[in-house]
């Protein structure tokens, strides 16, 4: 099938090299056009923060494109020495390249196993190449198939189940408790880095209000500006806790800022049984863990969230064998289908050539015996020749189909040469 997947990822190249090899939209267009023109190759360039890959397909009659040649090409595009790139490139050929793309699209080759963003990135890379007229029959079949496989893997296995980051685990807990967010108040205590990502996630839920409080008024102002929140003076923390539905605490205080006694006396009594979710992202912790009752007040610290995230990742890993099995089945199916499709013209040509040969022999023979044979005898001779032709071709055609199922197209070339086909 003359397909190659050549590139580097987090395992084969450092982030510095990957950054240097990154394709911006202009470079992508230029590189796609160059790959088409210079190497007569269909091409798709897949670039994410974890990988830079070229998917290249050429007609089978042409020599395949190898990693060293592509290292030179990348060196030319990015202005880097080829020897700096070449050692970090991997190369997958034919069925292995199909398998690689299917695994990539399914998130099996991702740093965060099963992440779903990659499927969108594969789709986008393919669409960019299609718009640039850089794809042909091979890649136009391969990439949609990869996206189908990705979908199948995700729907039939648990490889993408649950979020696996600490901040998204926090949001998942929020969703288990609350249904609507437009009437909810989020209180942010402190301005620690740990909570920033979680706050971004919470802000996406579009709560009614985000309150920000900090011992340092200037930092509170800055945080409030970043998240479009409202500053609450530090002295009014208890009132803010009464008002809040979700609390995100990230101070750098050495001691807990809300003890159980303080919470019971100044907050809980005034909440009228309303549910409160507290995410204590600070280390050391800001809230006394005994505040958690799992009923009206649920308190989660970083360890709780990390435990959930780790468990989910372990759960995803459990689905790897099933996902790999789907990928392997689909690779075999794709390769067999592709080869069968590629066999069509060869079989057609071969049959036509032998038809022509039969006519060349049978035509003069029948003309020579004209008048000596009845119509029935003529038909019998024609039938015998046809049978001979079919029996002669049956072996090569069956062998060709069998080779296709096994995934190699070498016999196709052999038949071309043996029978002088174009």
């Amino acid at each position, binding site marked *: 099938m003359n397909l190659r997947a050549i590139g580097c990822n987090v395992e084969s190249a450092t982030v510095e090299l990957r950054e240097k090899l990154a394709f911006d939209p202009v470079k992508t267009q230029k590189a796609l056009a160059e790959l088409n023109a210079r190497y007569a190759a269909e091409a798709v360039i897949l670039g994410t923060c974890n990988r830079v890959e070229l998917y290249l397909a050429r007609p089978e009659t042409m020599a395949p494109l190898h990693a060293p040649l592509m290292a030179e090409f990348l060196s030319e595009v990015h202005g880097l020495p080829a020897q700096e790139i070449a050692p970090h490139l991997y190369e997958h050929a034919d069925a292995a390249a199909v398998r690689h793309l299917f695994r990539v699209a399914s998130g099996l080759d991702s740093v965060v196993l099963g992440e779903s963003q990659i499927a969108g990135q594969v789709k986008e890379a393919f669409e960019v190449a299609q718009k640039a007229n850089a794809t042909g029959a091979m890649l136009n079949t391969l990439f949609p198939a990869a996206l189908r496989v990705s979908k199948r893997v995700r*729907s*039939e*296995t*648990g490889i993408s*189940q*649950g979020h696996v980051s600490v901040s998204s*685990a926090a949001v*998942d*807990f929020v*969703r*288990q*408790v*609350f*249904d*609507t967010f437009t009437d909810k108040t989020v209180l942010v205590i402190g301005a620690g880095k740990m909570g920033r990502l979680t706050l971004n996630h919470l802000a996406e839920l579009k709560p009614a209000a985000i309150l920000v409080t900090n011992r340092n008024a200037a930092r509170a102002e800055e945080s409030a500006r970043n998240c479009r929140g409202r500053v609450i003076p530090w002295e009014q923390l208890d009132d803010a806790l009464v008002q809040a539905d979700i609390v995100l605490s990230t101070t750098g205080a050495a001691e807990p800022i809300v003890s159980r006694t303080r919470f019971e006396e100044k907050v809980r009594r005034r909440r*009228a*049984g309303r*549910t409160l979710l507290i995410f204590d992202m600070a280390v050391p912790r800001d809230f006394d863990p005994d505040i958690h*009752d*799992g*009923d*009206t007040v*649920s308190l*989660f610290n970083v360890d*709780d969230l990390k*435990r*959930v995230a780790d*468990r*989910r990742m372990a*759960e995803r890993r459990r689905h790897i064998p099933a996902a790999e099995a789907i990928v392997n089945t689909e690779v075999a199916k794709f390769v067999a289908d592709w080869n069968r499709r590629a066999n069509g013209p060869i079989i057609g040509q071969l049959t036509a050539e032998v038809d022509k040969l039969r006519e060349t022999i049978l035509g003069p023979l029948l003309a020579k015996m004209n008048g000596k044979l009845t119509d029935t005898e003529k038909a019998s001779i024609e039938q015998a020749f046809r049978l001979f032709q079919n029996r002669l071709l049956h072996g090569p055609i069956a062998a060709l189909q069998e080779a296709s199922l096994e995934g190699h197209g070498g016999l196709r070339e052999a038949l071309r040469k043996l029978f002088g086909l174009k």
Partner: protein
Amino acid sequence: MSVSPLQGVTHACFALSYLCALLLEIARLLWPATGWRLASLAFGGAGIVAHTAYILYNQPTPAAPYGSLLLLAWVLALFYIYGTIHHAKQAWAVFVLPVVLGLVVLSLVLVSMNPASTRFHVPDWAAANRFWGAIHGLLLLLGAVGVSVSFVASVMYLMQARRLRNKVLPDDVAPILSLERLETMNRRALNIAFPLLTAGLFLGSLLLPEAYRFGGNWLSVKVVSTAGLWLVFLLLVYLRYGVHVPARRLAWLSILAFGLLLMALVASHPFAVGGGS
């Protein structure tokens, strides 16, 4: 003599359909794949069709325990289909279908214990009150639907709350609606069921003295459990709107109310000949 095709529909048709739908839902949660949900819905839908056909053909009376259980199961089966389609990602069926199946099985047990329990004979002295009796039965049946919905929401609520207390996430194994949504569902069920039960019981209490002049018993299981159910609901209304008791305690009370409802449904009606026991 022509035989209606509906005659062939039996309990087994819809009970087994619901059971298959439930098993397929469980399978979907354990081994996620799109096919399970469709198959489950197909079986659930078939169950409802058979259930409807059975009710149309046999016309079980809601006044008899057998009929009231079957009709309640039918309404809850509709609730199951609605929820499964509306909350497609949730493990809805796993909570609703066991209740539907339980009610169907209970009705079957009643029939096997006493085949006469499928019938409800209105005595002559009560024939004049037939219309009000029907209204009374309808109000209580609709109230029972509210109590059952409240039960299902409460079970889900307690499960979800337990997960939160233990700081675990469902991880898509058995996703349940949020606590807030379940609490809202429970509140709405209570708001609807309480007035219906009150009106139904009020009407029943107006009809009962007539029955007891002919030997009825004010302390029959049905009367006592129904009165208990109403008192629990009154308590629920007070605790919810009067003193803002935590939702978990309200959920337990709702489960108790459902238990009393079952007792009331299973007990024979004091209006029936030989009832009141």
